[in-house]
């Protein structure tokens, strides 16, 4: 049934429908609405689950690691500083091969304190062995959260469902909330692959000396390499029940595009509109929506965008000393491909600043007009009055 719900509640509805058994989380804006709703579901009996109100995000992840090792379906949610505090345990969860699902609301890191949209928090966790899926709207948030459980459990790896602060977490949209029976068909009761058992005692996550550590890491990578296969199967099953699918990446009007704009999150919706407008004016432009970031779908990227003359990447994140993170990843992915369009890197919309249609059109125009990409990322919309060291060329 379609209801008008907040992006945060699209997450919590999916978690309820997934019949999660143990949750643990620590509040941080803009994640709070997710966990408040889940606490209510536990209190009023709509969920048969335990919500552990821990004293930090580090403990939240530790608690779901403990619970997942005990063989139940688990969930947590965080954002920004909370995710950074979890860092040690993000590695722990993936290397222990636990199918934990986490909603992560993209928010800036301080100082200065900033609660608004920015992707650096999740992208900084790219080497932790978590699958990362970025969402564009409320429906996708709900669907992706459901999909995440199936994907995590089939791959024995944790999944992070990423959504923009406020633009998505606090925006009300009509979302089709499925009935429990359909969800149960898509996502049957959890069958743990790993579970501590007093009848069959063994140790989990114990010391791994040099003689086996590398093999264990290689095994995780082998699991990661199979994600596209698991993902496609899970999406197939999802589509057969719900009729929707998203793909690992989505190419919008890219077939004959000279320039492809690439980005993740809600800016994709704005870009679709800009592309439609530019197309009406005869420009050959498309959008590549970056949805799966880990594992990075390099081959698919090459097949969808390899024929463009230029790729322009909009990063709402930054890696100091290098540049936009999605742009780096796309450049690296294309390096071994036969056709290798130049990648233009733009930084915009950090710390909650709006990415407007004008921002995106400016990126398009700059890309069209430059013969080759600048060696460094180009920052769009810097205000020299707000920052005396800014130079705009």
């Amino acid at each position: 049934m379609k209801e008008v719900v907040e992006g945060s509640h699209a997450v919590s509805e999916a978690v309820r429908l997934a019949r999660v058994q143990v949750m643990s989380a620590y509040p941080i804006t803009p994640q709070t609405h997710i966990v408040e709703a889940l606490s209510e579901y536990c209190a009023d009996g709509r969920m048969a689950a335990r919500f552990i109100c821990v004293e930090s995000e580090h403990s939240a992840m530790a608690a779901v690691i403990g619970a997942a090792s005990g063989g139940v379906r688990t969930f947590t949610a965080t954002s920004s500083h909370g995710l950074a505090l979890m860092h040690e345990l993000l590695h722990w969860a993936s290397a222990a091969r636990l199918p934990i699902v986490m909603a992560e609301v993209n928010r800036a890191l301080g100082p200065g304190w900033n609660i608004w949209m920015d992707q650096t928090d999740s992208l900084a966790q790219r080497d932790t062995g978590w699958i990362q899926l970025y969402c564009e709207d409320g429906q996708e948030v709900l669907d992706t959260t459901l999909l995440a459980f199936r994907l995590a459990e089939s791959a024995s790896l944790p999944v992070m469902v990423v959504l923009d602060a406020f633009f998505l977490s606090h925006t009300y949209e009509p979302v089709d909330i499925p009935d429990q029976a359909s969800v149960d068909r898509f996502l049957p009761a959890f069958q743990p692959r790993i579970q501590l058992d007093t009848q069959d005692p063994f140790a989990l996550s114990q010391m791994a000396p040099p003689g086996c550590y590398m093999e264990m890491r290689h095994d995780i990578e082998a699991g990661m390499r199979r994600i596209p296969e698991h993902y496609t199967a899970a999406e197939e099953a999802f589509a057969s029940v719900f009729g929707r699918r998203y793909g690992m990446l989505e190419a919008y009007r890219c077939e004959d595009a000279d320039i492809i704009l690439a980005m993740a999150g809600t800016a994709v919706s704005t870009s679709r509109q800009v592309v439609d407008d530019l197309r009406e004016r005869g420009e050959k432009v498309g959008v590549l929506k970056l949805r799966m970031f880990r594992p990075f779908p390099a081959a698919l990227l090459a097949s969808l965008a390899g024929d463009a003359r230029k790729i322009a990447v909009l990063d709402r994140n930054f890696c100091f000393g290098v540049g936009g993170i999605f742009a780096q990843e796309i450049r690296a992915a294309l390096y071994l491909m036969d056709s290798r369009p130049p990648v233009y890197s733009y930084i915009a919309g950090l710390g909650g600043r709006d990415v407007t249609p004008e921002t995106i059109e400016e990126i398009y125009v700059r890309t069209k007009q430059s013969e080759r990409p600048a060696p460094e990322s180009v920052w769009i919309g810097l205000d020299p009055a707000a920052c005396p060291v800014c130079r705009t060329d």
Partner: protein
Amino acid sequence: MIHSPLPQTDYMASGHVGCPGCGATVAMKFALRALGEKTMLVIPACCWAIIAGSHPQTSLKVPVLHTAFATAGAAASGLRAALDMRGDTETTVVAWAGDGGTFDIGFQALSGAVERNEDFIYVCYDNEAYMNTGVQRSSSTPFGTRTTTTPGTNWKHTRKKNIVEAFAAHRIPYAATASIAYPEDMIRKFQRARELKGGSRFLHVYATCPTGWRVPSDQCIKIARLAVKTRAFPLYEVTDGVRYTLNHDAEPPLPVRDYLSVQGRFKHLTDDDYGEIQAMVDEDWELLKRKVALAPEEARA
């Protein structure tokens, strides 16, 4: 054939990699005898994370969840919740951590867990320093101790944190000290803790570390006994955070110097230092006696 009223089934294998004379392994041996096979251990980084064995071996005959250093209280909470959701209320979840993982880096997670009154037993085996990383000071290291981070004249000039008081202040159902030199007392406390299901139970177990304390490995139990006899480590229980029971009166006490002077880690102390430490021990003992006197009706369980 051993005739003893104490449980004799061992859930620890020989061939573990503890140092000779390791008190922490003695503690585990007695703890598991008392707790039995329906036990799951959660072990953060500490010597015991190594003693329990490397992949693919284990020196323990109960399931073990190894976890990150700061997380024993939180990971045990999660495991307990999972067992409850699966309908297994019989298995006892036991967090087993060193003093570093309890007094220091894991203190926050444990404080949170016992404030929620999580249904588990938390055991701190206390060897009074970070032994696994090479004898660095912790907040459990006593006044007067030389460690690798409190060397020379910079030996530790602050007192050991009183961890049982800290958790008694959380009003947890059961907190107790125990010593490897008093196995009957220790086993009784583990059994009592196991029976007191439904809330947080904290056991502070004294565990000699011959390597870190620079004592001969055959002195492990003797030194543990001296700690009790000198009142440096009193044996007592606290129920609901307020009712205190003393389990061993140590009357008359031996001078604390008898305990300190046999250990390399205290070799540098002067007569004045001994005097200062004796005054601290006396003061702590008086305080403890006053708390015991507040609840005289509490009989020994």
